[in-house]
Every structure is written in structure tokens, then in C-alpha cells.
């Protein structure tokens, strides 16, 4: 923002303009969208910062902090329905510690034996589950076109409100049936709900889209099959992973890593 423009804003806000200057400025504001937008932003910055530094802000924080001490440190722990529960406490008793250590050791031994016996059939699912929990429990906001509904869908997904997320993505697809983001996110939402069939259907549709610079459809198909790991899912997943590597498609690095381990 230009200093001259800001000086005008200041003069206007401080009622320091002559009648003629005031008329001219208001006319300019009404006809010049960019100036009007800049003025709104300027006012918001001024008002926001003034609010953050205000005495009222400090006083309210102090009141809330006192109430926080009263209710959060000493108050009841209440589940949604209203019944009270005992707060979670740290385990400090050494006897408990020994008992839990023993249980943990037995658990680790059972787990190790389980992996030795069933490693080949479980590893694909394990790898996919790990990938899911590390990369797909929270989605990043995108900069795509059908902005509002896709963004709202992502927020709903991140809040684990999958039914609501689906309605947003489905609305986008009703308006634009080949919107690749909506296809991808709808597939991921079905995946989060463990509806593998529907997830696969949307990922197949996504993979069939042409003219995309980078298409993650095949990768998510293979990933879904690994997660489901039923009958011939793993062999189908392997085929797709090979295809991704051969075509150097999106996810090829991860595909190679998985294929080496399968």
C-alpha cells in the first residue's frame, strides 16, 4: 500500500479532511474497487491491532484465566452426555509400573511371534495403515478452483465428520463431474469410513481423467487394495504399483518402496 494512500486513509478516519477532500475521497472509494478493498484491509488491521492492545482484551483474558483455574484445574471432568468421570492420572505407583512393564513385554513377544508367522500376508496392510495414519488423517487445504465447498469438505474431513465432508465433495461433483480434487477427496473420505468399494470406484474414475499434470488415481487404487488386503488384492496392488513406477506416475517413489517390501 502506498504511503500517500495511507495518509489519505488516516486523514479520513481522523476527520481531518476538508469538505471538498471528503467528497472526492468518498466518490473515489465508491468507484474504485481496489481502493475500497485496500481501505477495508487497512481498517481491519487498525481495528484488530487496537483490539489486541486494548485494556478490554487484557481484562477479559484475566477473567477467563481465573475461571480456567477454577473450572479446568479443580472442576469436574464431564463427558458429552453429562456424566462425570474420573480424570486420567499419571501412573506413579511402582507396582503398577512393574505390572504394565511385564504386560508390555509379553505383548511385544506375542507381536514378534505373530509377525514371524504372518509377516507376508500382513505387511502390505501394515504399511498402508502406517501411510494412512502419517499422511491422510489430516488433509491440507488446497488452492483449487471450486474453493469454498472443497475447503469446507476438507475441514469436515479433518474434524472426522466424514458424512458432512462427503456431502460437500458430492455437491462439487454435481456441478463439475470431473473435478479431480473432489474425486480424490471423496475417495479418501470413503476410505476413512473403510468403504473400500466406493473409494476404489472414485479412485478409478480419478485415474481415468486425462490432461492432469499429475494424477494420484492409480496410487490411491493400489493403496486402497493394500489397506483392504482381501483375496487377490495384494497381487492387483503389486501390478498397479509396477505400472506407477513404469509410468513414473504420482507416488512412484512410495510405490517402489512398497513394492520392494512386498
Amino acid at each position: 500500500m502506498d504511503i500517500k494512500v495511507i495518509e489519505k486513509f488516516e486523514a479520513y478516519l481522523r476527520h481531518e479532511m476538508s469538505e471538498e477532500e471528503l467528497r472526492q475521497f468518498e466518490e473515489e472509494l465508491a468507484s474504485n474497487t481496489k481502493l475500497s478493498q485496500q481501505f477495508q484491509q487497512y481498517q481491519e488491521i487498525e481495528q484488530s491491532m487496537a483490539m489486541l492492545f486494548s485494556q478490554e482484551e487484557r481484562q477479559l483474558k484475566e477473567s477467563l484465566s481465573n475461571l480456567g483455574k477454577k473450572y479446568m484445574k479443580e472442576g469436574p471432568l464431564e463427558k458429552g452426555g453429562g456424566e462425570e468421570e474420573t480424570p486420567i492420572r499419571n501412573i506413579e505407583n511402582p507396582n503398577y509400573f512393574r505390572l504394565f512393564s511385564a504386560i508390555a513385554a509379553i505383548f511385544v513377544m506375542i507381536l514378534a511371534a505373530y509377525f514371524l508367522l504372518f509377516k507376508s500376508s500382513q505387511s502390505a496392510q501394515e504399511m498402508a495403515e502406517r501411510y494412512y495414519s502419517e499422511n491422510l488423517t489430516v488433509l491440507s487445504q488446497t488452492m483449487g478452483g471450486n474453493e469454498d465447498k472443497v475447503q469446507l469438505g476438507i475441514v469436515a474431513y479433518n474434524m472426522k465428520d466424514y458424512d458432512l465432508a462427503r456431502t460437500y465433495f458430492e455437491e462439487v461433483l454435481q456441478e463439475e463431474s470431473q473435478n479431480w480434487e473432489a474425486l480424490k477427496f471423496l475417495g479418501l473420505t470413503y476410505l476413512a469410513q473403510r468403504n473400500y468399494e466406493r473409494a476404489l470406484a472414485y479412485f478409478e474414475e480419478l485415474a481415468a481423467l486425462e490432461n492432469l499434470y499429475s494424477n494420484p488415481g492409480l496410487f490411491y487404487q493400489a493403496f486402497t487394495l493394500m489397506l483392504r488386503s482381501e483375496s487377490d488384492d495384494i497381487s492387483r496392488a503389486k501390478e498397479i504399483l509396477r505400472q506407477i513406477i513404469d509410468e513414473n506416475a504420482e507416488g512412484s517413489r512410495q510405490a517402489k518402496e512398497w513394492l520392494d517390501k512386498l
Partner: protein
Amino acid sequence: MPHPDQKYIVALLNNDKAVLDELYRKYSGKIKWMVLKNNGSEDDAADIFQDALMSIYHKARLNGFELTCPFDAFIYMVCKKKWLNVLAKRKNHGVTNLEDHEYSLGEDSFKLAEECHIQDERLELMKSKFSELGESCQELLNLSWGDKSMEEVAGILGFTYGYARKKKSECMAKLTKLIQASPIFKTLKW
């Protein structure tokens, strides 16, 4: 038509301690439960709840705020989003108890929570860019945003009124430039 729980928004605006006490008594327990069940402490719960209420207060102060849904669903959504962000920053994936079925989470509570989130992000951006300004700009702007007139600010800093005004415009130009140059500026729907 505002929801009857609008009284809590009014209480935040007026720092009405009696109604705020009622608000904490009625709603803080559920948030404490959610945070403790998801790898948080009592301090975390207190911070999240206070932070959420301050966000709502900021939105009400800056843009006005008509609550069109029950306060419990709305505050839960705001807190949940804040807590998920904290967990994401701590790279903690052990979220197990973020169940919403006991709330009537209509689209209104969802949208209002999202608006609060965007407002928060804007305020965070402003604060962080303000801290990048030089000390003299920070001091002048800080004084000018307080209760004092620009003449008084000029007097405190030993400037003439004209110079103080010019300096303020320069500082605000720097601040707005820093804010607009930030990569997240465009995502904040300004």
C-alpha cells in the same frame, strides 16, 4: 433470529463475570474431557478453552456475531479444531476420542467455527508481522492504537504532530506490505 445462547457472546463482549462463570460451569467440562482423552493436560484444556473464547470475542468485536446454533456445539467445534491443530504441530497422531455424536453439529456451527478459525489466522498473521517491525514503529503504533490521541502520542515521543502522523503512515505502509507479502495472505479470503 439469534439463538438464546447469544447471551454468552454478549457476556464476552461485556466481560460479564457472572454469565462467564455460568459458561465455564456448563461447557468447560466437556472440552476438558475431550483434551484429556486425547493426549492433553488440564493446562492444555484451559488454554484451548480460553483461546476459543478469545477467538469468539475477537470475531464479535470486529465483525459482530449472531449465534444461530447452540453454543455447546459451536464451542466444541472451535475447540476441536484448535486441539487438532495443536496435535498436528506436536506430530501426535493418537487421536481416539473426538466423537461428536452427542452434539447437534449443524452446518451453522461448522461454518461459524470455520469463520472464527480464519479470523484467528488473520490476527496471528498481523501479530507476527507487527513483531517484524523496528522498535520505533512498534512503539509509535502501539501508542496510537491505545486510548491516546495522536497529539498525545506525538507529545510522549517528542515529535511534532505532523511528524508523528507521517511516521505512523510510514509504519502502517511497512506493516501492510509485510502482511500482504506473506504466502498465507491470499488463503485468508481477505
